[in-house]
C-alpha cells in the first residue's frame, strides 16, 4: 500500500533558496517497521536535498528489491522513481544516466541487493565511475525475506534466529575502493549529524559516490548478539572525521581552529571540511583508507565518515566522450543520416 501524507502545511515553515519547505522533499508514508534504520536514511536524504536546494524533479531515484529498495518511495515525491529487479539497479542507473547526464541519480540498495545477487553489477558500476550516489542500507541481513544472513554479516554475529554467521563478510567500502570509486564513505543511520553532510557532498560529487550506511533491522537483526544492532553500533562506531559541507557560493561561517581541519573542494566549488576526530586518515589515499577500515575491523570497531575522495573529473561520460547535451534530447536531424547517405551506403555494397 502507499499511504499519502496529509497535505496541510504550516505557513511559517522554513524554506530553502528555492522557496521549498523541507516537506516538499518528502515522499509517501513509510510502510517499514517502526524504528527501521532505513527510515532514518530516508529522512537524512530529505534533509540533505532540502539543504542543497535541488529541484526534486532533477533527481531520479532507483533501487533494486528489498526493504531498503522500497525507500525511494519515501522521499522526493516529485522525482521519478524506478524500483527495478533484485540486484540490478546499477545497470538501470547506467542506462538512465547514459540517456541524460544532466540529472542527479540516487540509487538505493541493500546489503543483499548489492553484496550478493547484485555483487557483479555493483562492482561494474563502480568501475564505470557513473556519476551517481550509490547508497547501501546495510543491516547485515535480508530484511524483506525475514532475516537470513547477508554477505555483510560479521563472522560470529547472530540475529534473531540465533545462529552465528560462519562466513567471511564482504566489506562494500573496501570493494568500492579497490574498484576505483572516487567517493567512499561509511555512516550509521543513527548519526544524522554525519550522514546529512556526507549525503550532500556525495550528491554534489561528479562521479561515483558510494556510501555504506549501517542501518539496523529492528525486526530481525537488532539482537544483543548482532554486530549490526543499534547498541553495538553506538558502542563501536569510530568517526574518522567530522564532516561539514559548504555548497558553492556560500560563505563559510563556521570558524575552524587552524590546523584541525582539511578543506576539499569539489568541481562546482563546494567545499568539504573535515575535522579530524579519532583517526588521522588521509582521504586522498585509497590504500590508507583500506588499511584504516581493516585496522578498525580487527579491533571490532566500525570506522565511519568520509574515507576517500578523488576530485579529478573522470566520470563515465567523460571517459566515453559523449556530448554534453543529454542523448535523450537529440532529434531526428542529429540522429538520422538520411536518404542520400543511404544511397551512398548502397553503392558501397555492390
Amino acid at each position: 500500500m502507499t499511504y499519502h501524507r496529509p497535505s496541510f502545511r504550516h505557513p511559517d515553515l522554513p524554506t530553502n533558496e528555492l522557496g521549498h519547505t523541507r516537506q516538499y522533499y518528502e515522499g509517501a508514508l513509510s510502510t517499514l517497521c517502526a524504528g527501521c534504520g532505513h527510515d532514518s536514511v530516508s529522512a537524512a536524504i530529505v534533509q540533505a536535498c532540502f539543504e542543497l536546494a535541488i529541484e526534486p524533479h532533477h533527481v531520479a531515484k532507483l533501487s533494486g528489491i528489498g526493504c531498503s529498495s522500497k525507500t525511494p518511495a519515501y522521499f522526493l515525491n516529485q522525482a521519478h522513481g524506478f524500483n527495478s529487479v533484485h540486484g540490478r539497479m546499477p545497470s538501470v542507473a547506467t542506462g538512465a544516466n547514459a540517456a541524460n547526464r544532466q540529472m542527479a541519480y540516487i540509487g538505493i540498495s541493500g546489503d543483499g541487493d548489492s553484496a550478493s545477487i547484485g555483487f557483479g553489477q555493483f562492482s561494474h558500476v563502480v568501475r564505470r565511475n557513473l556519476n551517481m550516489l550509490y547508497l547501501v542500507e546495510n543491516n547485515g541481513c535480508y530484511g524483506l525475506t525475514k532475516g537470513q544472513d547477508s554477505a555483510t554479516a560479521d563472522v560470529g554475529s547472530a540475529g534473531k534466529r540465533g545462529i552465528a554467521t560462519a562466513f567471511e563478510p564482504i566489506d562494500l567500502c573496501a570493494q568500492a575502493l579497490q574498484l576505483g570509486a572516487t567517493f567512499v564513505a561509511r555512516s550509521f543511520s543513527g548519526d544524522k549529524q554525519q550522514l546529512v553532510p556526507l549525503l550532500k557532498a556525495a550528491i554534489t560529487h561528479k562521479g561515483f559516490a558510494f556510501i555504506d550506511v549501517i542501518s539496523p533491522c529492528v525486526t530481525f537483526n537488532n539482537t544483543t548478539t548482532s554486530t549490526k544492532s543499534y547498541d553495538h553500533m553506538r558502542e563501536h562506531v569510530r568517526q574518522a572525521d567530522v564532516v561539514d559541507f559548504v555548497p558553492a557560493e556560500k560563505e563559510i561561517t563556521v570558524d575552524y581552529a587552524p590546523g584541525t581541519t582539511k578543506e576539499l573542494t569539489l568541481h562546482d566549488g563546494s567545499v568539504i571540511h573535515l575535522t579530524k576526530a579519532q583517526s588521522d586518515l588521509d582521504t586522498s589515499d585509497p590504500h590508507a583508507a583500506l588499511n584504516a577500515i581493516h585496522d578498525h575491523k580487527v579491533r571490532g570497531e566500525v570506522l565511519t565518515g568520509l574515507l576517500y575522495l578523488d576530485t579529478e573529473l573522470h566520470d563515465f561520460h567523460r571517459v566515453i566522450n559523449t556530448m554534453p547535451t543529454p542523448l535523450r534530447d537529440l532529434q531526428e536531424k542529429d540522429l538520422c543520416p538520411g536518404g542520400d547517405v543511404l544511397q551512398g551506403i548502397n553503392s558501397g555494397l555492390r
Partner: protein
Amino acid sequence: MSKHQITSTNDFVIRFANVNGTGSASANGLFAKALFRMGLPISPKNIFPSNIQGLPTWYEVRVSEKGYLGRRGGVDISVAMNPQSLKQDIDCLQAGGYLMYDSTKPLDIRVQRDDVHYLGIPLTEMCQREYDDPRKRQLFKNVIYVGALAALLDMDFSVLTGLVADTFKGKEKLVLPNIHALEMGYQYAQEHFQCPLGIRVERRDLTTEKIMMSGNDALGLGAVYGGATVVGWYPITPSTSAVEAFEKYANKFRICEQTGCKKFALIQAEDELAAIGIVLGASWNGARSFTATSGPGVSLMSEFLGLAYFAEVPTVLFDIQRTGPSTGMPTRTQQSDILAAAYASHGDTKHVLLFPATPKECFEMSALSFDLADRLQTPIILLSDLDLGMNDVMSDPLEWDDSRQYDRGKVLSRKDLERMDTPFGRYRDVDDDGICYRTYPGSHPQKGAYFTRGSSHNRDAAYTEKSEDYVDSMERLLKKWHTAKSLVPAPQRYDNPDANKSTDLGMLFFGTTTDAALEAQNILAEEGIHINALRVRAFPFNDQVEAFLSEHQQIFVIEQNRDGQLRTLLMNECSADPSRLIPLTLYDGMPVCAQDIRREIRKTLKVNNVMPLRAQTRGDS
C-alpha cells in the same frame, strides 16, 4: 567411356574448404563478389567452427540464374585447401563434379573417387617459388586459386581486377601483387586444363539494383537510422557483429563535428542482465536504446523482460539465434528461440516479435522496432539468426524516407502536463487502446512524476495488492496486445505460382526459411503439387494469419527447430485446428535446403519420392 561431367551455366554450387585463420575469407569473398558484379544472383554461406584458428571452415557459394538464394544442397565444385577435411570435401561432390586441390603433394589415393574430376594446382610450390615471406606464401595461395577458377569458369577477369582495386582503395601497394597472383592462377589453369569447364558462368544483368550485405550490418545501420543512442551489450556469437555494425556506422555518422563528441553511448556490460538493464534504464529515461544477443543471453535477460512488460518500459532486443539448447552449436544457425522470446519471463507475459527475412528487412525492422517499442511501451524482440546475420545476403537496396518522423509514442511533455485538467495517472487507459501516457523523468517540477515498479500497481502507479487492481492492469495489457496486432508488420502471402490451380494446401514459415520454402513451392508446382505460402513477419499474429489458416486444409509449418515452436505459437494464439498444422522441422544447424522441404512435403502427401539426379550426394551435404 568418358566420365560424366556436370554441365551447367550460371547454376551451380562451389564450396571452399579452408583452415580457420589462414586469410581465405577475403579471397573467397572476392570470388563471390565478382560473380555478383557479373550480374549473377549468388548466395554465399560461411560454415565456420566455434574457434579462432586452426579448425576447418567452409565457404559455400550457390550461383543461381533463377535467383534462388536458399541453400541448394550438394556441391559441384569443391576447392579442397584443408588436408584435415579432404575426405569430406571429396565426398560432398555430386557425381561428375570437380575437385580443385593443391597438387604440390600427391592426393591421398585412399579418399579418391572415380566419378569426379581432379583439378590439381601446385599452389604451395608456386608460392614457394614466387614469395619469400611465409605470410605471403600462405595468403596468395588463396588468391591464386581464385585466378584459376576465373579461367575454369570463364569469369570476366576485368571484374576481378576492378574488385581488387576497389577492395584495396587507399592501400594501392596491395593492388598489383593481388592481381599478379590472380594472373598466376589464371595462366596455370589456361595452360593445364580444358577451359572453361562444363560448369561455367555468363554475364547477366540480374543484380543491377541489388546489394550484398549481412543482416547484422543492416540491423546496426537500422538502429542508427532509427535513432538509438544507448546500447548495452555483451559479446556473443552470432550477435556481436550487429553491435559492431552500430558502432561502425555511429562512429561515421554520429560524431559532433565541432567537438568530436559522440551522439551515442555504447556500453559493453558485464553480462546480458546488465545489458538489458541498461536498455530499460535508458528507455525509461527517454532515450532510444537496444541490446543484441543470442539464445543464452535471452535466457539471462528474461527477468528484466518481464519487468519491461509489466512496468511498460520500451525495450528493443535483437536476438540473433544460433543452435541450442544451452551452448549448443554456437556457430550454426537455428530458429529455436521463438517460444523463449514470445513468452520470456515468469507469470503471464507475451512479447512482440519481428521476423526479418532479408538485409533490407533487417534494416527496416531494426528502425521500426524503436517506433513500436515507444508506441507500445513494451519489449520488441527482433528474431534474426546466424544464417541471415553473419552471411552476406543479396538484397534489394535499403531505402529511407526523409519525411519520416520517429514515433515517440504517448509521452506527455511539460507543456502537455501544464494544460491537463485531469490528474496524471501513469496507467490510465485514456484512449481506450490499452496504451497509457508516460512522462520522462525531469519533465515537470510538480506534475507527472511516478514510480516505476515490477510489483503490482494501480492506474496511478501506486503499489497495490488489491485483486481487482491487479486484474485490471493484466486485462489492459491484453487490450494493448490486441492493439499491437494492427501495428506490427503484416504477413506476406505468396500464392501458388500457377494462378489457375486453386489449392487447399498451405505452407507457413518465417525468416531464413523463406528462400528455400519458396523454391520448394516452385519445384513442387512444376511437379503438379500446388501450395500457397504465407510468411509471417511478426507476432502477435493478425487476422491475415488467421484467414490463411482457415482457408487451407493442410498447412505445413516450416521452421528450423525440433519441436515446431512456431506451430506451438500458432496453436496457442490462433483458432486453427492443430491437426491441420503439419510440423516440418529442419534443425541440423545448417541453412535449410529446398530439396529437404520438397522431400518432407512429398512424404507427408505420400507422393513417390524420386530425387532428381542433381540432388544426389555422397556422404554429408
